């Protein structure tokens, strides 16, 4: 860990100003990811601006019927918020499927979006990694890549975005509000994270100095027919090998609207809009689900130790769609998702 200076911002403008006033600097949320990375010398900010205590921790109704999740509200407070539980239960389930109670109590919503990949090599500064050190090479390609991407990867990087919360967010499609040296802007969630391409050092499109202030959820929450299915190497406190967030609207047995997003498979939370189109207007049957699942993984590419994820993802999509159709998220997930 390298030495750094530290300050606590009083308001958004102060935070943005403070960060801009220092060279290599970073915002600090709950610190559950950034501090680890600093200890491993993966990140070496010379200045930290603590934003965790900014008054951005509210969860409040929006005039358009949506819900605003403050950037510094903790993952735990967000998951257990009554509005979230009632209107966006998929989000509640996704957050609770992640990390541990202690971590969720500390982690902020913005930090969750901004958390970095768990790629083993990214964490180990003794091995080459294009994301950590552009141009040095990707150790995961041809290495051990059980937790790596099967969709949208590049020759430069096959890392995945590790968040559970973001998979549900990808399905719910909120707007990310940010404030920066050049003012405020809103970013559609699907545009926020990016694919690695030849610049894997960038996880998302946030510009230097921009601070996330809130996540604005639209009204539609898919509270009746939804699921968040997470498959991992132990029953809690492990990142997803594959996860699936599904939201459906049904008329009788016909799907009228659908959302489908995957975690653990790509550099970003993987929402598949074409699969959603394939679902719309179709009967909610095993046949439909199988066809859509095959479509989602049609272009998937394995890297060796993660080859199994292609088949696993296919089966998980089918299962998630079944669960969502039957509206029995909790009962089934008592088996798989033991959190909390």
């Amino acid at each position, binding site marked *: *860990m390298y030495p750094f200076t530290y300050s606590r911002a009083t308001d958004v403008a102060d935070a943005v100003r403070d960060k801009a006033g220092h060279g290599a600097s970073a915002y600090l949320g709950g610190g559950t990811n950034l501090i680890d990375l600093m200890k491993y010398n993966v990140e070496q900010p010379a200045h930290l601006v603590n934003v965790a205590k900014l008054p951005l921790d509210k969860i409040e109704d929006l005039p358009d019927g949506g819900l605003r999740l403050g950037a510094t509200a903790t993952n735990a407070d967000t998951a257990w918020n009554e509005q979230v539980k009632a209107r966006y239960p998929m989000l509640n389930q996704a957050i609770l499927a992640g990390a541990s109670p202690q971590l969720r109590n500390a982690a902020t919503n913005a930090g969750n979006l901004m958390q970095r990949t768990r790629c083993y090599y990214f964490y180990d500064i*003794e091995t080459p990694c294009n994301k950590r050190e552009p141009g040095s090479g990707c*150790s995961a390609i041809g*290495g051990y890549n059980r937790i790596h991407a099967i969709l949208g990867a590049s020759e430069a990087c096959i890392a995945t975005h590790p968040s559970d919360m973001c998979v549900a967010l990808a399905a719910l499609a909120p707007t990310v509000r940010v404030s920066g040296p050049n003012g405020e802007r809103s970013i559609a969630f699907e545009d926020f994270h990016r694919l690695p391409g030849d610049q894997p050092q960038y996880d998302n499109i946030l510009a230097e100095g921009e601070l996330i202030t809130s996540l604005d959820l639209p009204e539609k929450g898919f509270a009746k027919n939804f699921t968040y299915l997470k498959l991992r190497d*132990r*029953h*809690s406190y492990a990142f997803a090998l594959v996860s699936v967030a599904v939201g459906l609207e049904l008329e009788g047995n016909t799907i009228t609207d659908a959302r489908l997003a995957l975690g653990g498979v790509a550099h970003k939370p993987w929402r598949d809009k074409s699969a959603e189109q394939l679902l719309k207007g179709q009967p909610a049957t095993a046949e439909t689900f199988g066809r859509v699942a095959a479509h989602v993984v049609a272009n998937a590419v394995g890297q060796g130790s993660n080859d199994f994820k292609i088949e696993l993802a296919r089966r998980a999509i089918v299962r998630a769609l079944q669960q969502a159709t039957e509206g029995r998220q909790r009962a089934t997930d008592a*088996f798989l998702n033991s*959190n909390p």
Partner: protein
Amino acid sequence: MSQTDHIGKGPNRVDGPLKVSGTAHYAGEFNVPNLAYGYVVNSPIAKGKVVQVHADEVLALPGVLAVYSHENVPHLAWFDRSYKDLLAPGGSPFRPLHSPDITFNQQPVALVMAETFELARYAAALLRVDYEQEKHETNLETKRTEGYLPGGGKLGYAPPPPPRGNPEKAWKNADQKIEAEYTHGAQHHNPMELFTSTVEWLGKDKITVYDKTQGVFNVQRYLTGVFGLSKDNCRVVSQFMGGGFGSGLRPQYSVFMATLAALELKRSVRVTLTRQQMFSIGHRPNTLQFVKLATNPDGSLASLQHHALHETSLFEDYTENVVNWSGMQYQCDNVKLGYQLAQLDVYSPQDMRAPGAATGNPGIEIAMDEMAYAAGLDPLEFRFRNYAERDQNVDKPFSSKKLRECYREGAAKFGWDKRPLEPRSMREGHLLTGWGMAGGVWDAMQMPSRASARITADGRLLVLSGAGENGAGTYTIMTQIAAETLGLPLEAVTFELGDTDQPQAPLQGGSWTAASVGTAVKNACDALGEKLLKLAQKQKDSPLKDADYDEVEFVNGQLRLRRDPDRAVVLRDLLQASGVTQVEAESTALPNMLKQNGYSLHSHNAVFAEVQVDEDLGTVRVTRVVNAVAAGRILNRKTARSQVLGGVVWGLSMALMEETIMDHKFGRYVNHNYAEYHIPVNADMPHIDVLFVHEDDDIVNPLGVKGIGEVGMLGVTAAIANAIFHATGKRVRDLPIMLDKLL
């Protein structure tokens, strides 16, 4: 019923309050004044040379005190012998900072000393080290045909017994037979507490070392050997450990580093390893196993062959007993056991909970399940048909063996009789349920040990033995033994351990502490008891005048005649009346070879497990485990049960998730942190029933105890793997069984 009968009951841990109130001091918590801090720099390559350490660059930072590497380490002991600790295997022990040669990845190459931990860590990050890299090999698969016999054993190692009968011919001629290969990856102990050593400088080459170790005398031996200190000037203390599991049996490089720096800087020093560095200090070796079994038409074993090959370092022949138990677990006249090593560019493996057995047991016990199915027999029935009444390895009877009772009582508790033989026959929607079983054997050992006991006029007893305690409950059971021997309440007894100023005790491992230190404690208390009797007999009109020691007993604070309990003296009155301030005795306990020689001494268990497997997704949940254990006399039902619960956690971990992954390109472990090195969390744990089967044994030792720490882990891994087969019909032979292997 006396109030001072303690053995066999389940009192709470006597050290519990200290632990939960933070007053139990661990190695990294001795805050002696003027501490300097060290941070270790490790090699990023697996093989090659250190060309240069650019120490001058970081020495320029204010507050950095020194950088030690092979370039400037002072003259230390020359001969290998001086570096050999009590558990050193054959070969040449690793000498930290000794030469520029790199023989494994993460080899420590430098120690940075600074005024604060943070500064030492920062300077370590800046320290430039130039390497010359050579081609390494870390993949056991490449050494399949290059196995060799170990060049020398270590404490507790026994080469496999010679073959008996004609196993290969019997296997060829049999109609029902199996042949299979089993593997598992490396594992690291990963106790919660990191390795830390605080070395207190007491002036003129005199130090006290607060270390995380399972053997203070072993560390003392090592440090005096390496640094040329006298024993009097090198006291080693380790009263509490946040887990060890074998990782603290041999002195780790942290204690070498801290001692080196303290002697050089003439100052107190602390060195703490990071979690990542906890993957550079020895591991359960990656192992390949080959098993052949065959049965006669009546279901008796016609042939049993078990061969193991595991990795070791280039410099030491690390050995453990992987296959030996297979030759005594079942009755079979045609047996061949083999054991070989292969050298790789890795650090020496190290004993890890149930070393060898945890490896070989799943091999033979999954094979037995496969054989049962090949023979069309229920796996439990198959084991009854091949029950070993005698240890055929050494051709001796068992001192006691209540394995049959373990099978029966465990099966009854589990409901095994309702099990359909056919795999895939218990289904509920997409969930397949399976039931599996397996058994285990571990050696009942006793090592020479000493203890002292001292009673003071206020009636308080202090018992000392320099044993280790890694959380198993040693403080508590020794307190129970001492209190019961001298008829005192637990509150009147203090047991202390983990200090080289105390009477010498063996390393804390092998499940031998209860038997070894327990017997020493009992002997010391009896020796003290004899003195107390003499003291009583000196009193005027003593009611115990002509009594021999074996005619009296200590009960409820009294010393009294067994046949006439009214003839008694109250201990405290006696001490006060006789005017002594204290009475003291010390004693040694050695295994009674005369008594033991004719017997094979072992503990046994039988495990029954239920799993549910999601057929589509491959996820496994263990829903029930019954672990029935025969381990002689159970000293404390509560701590013994906790040991077995922990064993189930370990066995489940090995079955389903635990593995250190090596990237052979770098020759480096990749999942070296708690986020990616998976061990079970609460959500993974099933309902566990622990049964202790009654077993009397006056041959193993006077207390009749066999030890419980290792045997509780055995059988669990195989029972789960066998249950997964019963659920799915899929036989997975490569542990751990992660979901992709069941898709």
